[in-house]
């Protein structure tokens, strides 16, 4: 009767435990930190209902357990309920990751009936005006009534708050609002800088003092609220010199399917030029996960160079994030520059330093919208 075993976590054992379906890149919001590709509007051939169902069945066969319906805004898919029902029937823990836009009472009731287990709802600020400006669309009132409706339908809620220098001041109020409405979890996720967020990094990246302030408020709230509200605070990798164990390693436990059926080891992976990601329309998912060149590319540590290859933390952080290495150093096999052992660490340090210097209140943000930037223009490399 050992009780220690009860706390065993799954290490994946080579299975894609976490499956995320990005049902669409369409979204009514214009968040300037969106992690969808910069050329999202050029991807139109979304998988059909039957194709998504096949993905669900095939992923269960290779061990997927947690299922996230994401986007874009997944509520824009009228077949969401049908897919949730299929996922639940197959034994997944079904999560909906949504802005809340379009999440009507009728659809909530139907989603409940179809077996949806949990909802992750994004919120940007406790102040209506600030929230709406940040996402470029009037949405605050709708989000507030959606939270209440979700709670009255009895779903557990994770409130997802992407932290930037535009909402550090809202931490306390958001926590109070969550506690009042019976939300179970808040995730303050410091924005990770890819795609739209990277484009807007100079405006979004908080100072270290702002992050310390936010974390201190979170710790106070944890003491005050105890078990009734679980607050996650995702520490940003820019500030402590240690890279994140991105996706728990490439092709280790996470599988994302993009709207057009591209299979990805993480949601950002399409930023890697020259990697051909296999599509579920053309290939068997078991082959994609276990054998395809794209999923083998950075799996394990045989791809590593110095200093990663000699590092005693390589099993802990897997050299950090391949996408960040590529975006900031031009080579995905480099050490993540968020690591203080990287010879490119100065790139991160200078961004952090610039955040202190750039106190310009009206740094322009490029809102996520069609045609806002040209994602196809490539710099000519020297």
């Amino acid at each position: 009767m050992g009780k220690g075993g009860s706390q065993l976590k799954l290490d994946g054992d080579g299975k894609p435990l976490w499956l995320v379906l990005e049902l669409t890149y369409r979204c009514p919001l214009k968040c300037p930190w969106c992690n969808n590709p910069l050329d999202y509007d050029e991807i139109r051939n979304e998988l059909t209902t039957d194709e998504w169902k096949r993905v669900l069945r095939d992923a269960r066969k290779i061990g997927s357990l947690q299922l996230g319906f994401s986007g874009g805004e997944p509520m824009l898919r009228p077949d969401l309920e049908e897919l949730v029902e299929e996922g639940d029937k197959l034994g997944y823990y079904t999560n909906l990751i949504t802005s809340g836009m379009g999440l009507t009472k009728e659809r909530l009731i139907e989603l409940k009936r179809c077996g949806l287990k949990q909802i992750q709802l994004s919120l940007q600020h406790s102040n209506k005006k600030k929230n709406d400006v940040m996402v470029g669309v009037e949405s605050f009132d709708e989000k507030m009534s959606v939270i209440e409706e979700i709670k009255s339908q009895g779903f557990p809620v994770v409130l997802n708050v992407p932290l930037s220098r535009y909402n550090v001041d809202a931490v306390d109020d958001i926590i109070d609002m969550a506690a009042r409405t019976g939300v179970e979890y808040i995730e303050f996720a410091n924005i990770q800088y890819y795609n739209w967020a990277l484009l807007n990094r100079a405006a979004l990246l908080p100072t270290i003092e702002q992050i310390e302030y936010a974390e201190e408020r979170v710790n106070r709230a944890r003491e005050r609220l105890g078990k009734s509200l679980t607050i996650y605070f995702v520490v940003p990798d820019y500030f402590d010199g240690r890279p994140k164990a991105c996706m728990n390693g490439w092709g280790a436990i996470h599988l994302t399917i993009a709207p057009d059926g591209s299979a990805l080891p993480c949601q950002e992976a399409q930023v890697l030029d020259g990697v051909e990601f296999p599509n579920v329309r053309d290939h068997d998912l078991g082959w994609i996960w276990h054998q395809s060149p794209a999923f083998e590319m950075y799996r394990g540590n045989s791809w590593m160079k110095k200093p990663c290859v000699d590092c005693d933390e390589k099993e802990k952080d897997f050299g950090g994030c391949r996408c960040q290495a590529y975006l900031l150093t031009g080579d995905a096999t480099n050490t993540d520059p968020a690591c203080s052992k990287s010879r490119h660490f100065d790139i991160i340090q200078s961004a952090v330093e610039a955040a202190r210097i750039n106190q310009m209140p009206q740094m322009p943000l490029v809102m996520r919208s069609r045609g806002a930037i040209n994602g196809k223009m490539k710099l000519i490399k020297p």
Partner: protein
Amino acid sequence: MTSSNAPFALNERPEINPVFLFRWEEQEQAYLLLYPEGIIKLNDSAGNILKLCDGERTIETIVAELKVLFGNDNIEGDVYNFMEVAHGKGWITAKA
């Protein structure tokens, strides 16, 4: 911070916190607890205890059934220890 040390009374009926999904997973040959941010794979004894936390059975009944299941009369302490841990982690609650 937590009230995890509050022991269950013998006549209380523990149940799985509805935030968690508890079920058998054939591929893992184990009971799992699935919840919004994660997956917990339970060992055999933990799984068998939680299986009985259905909001119907009292602690007294659960212990009696487990004694039969494990063929061991001296398991009460272990069961209570596990339940305290499970309660502390928010996996189970006493049904009102």
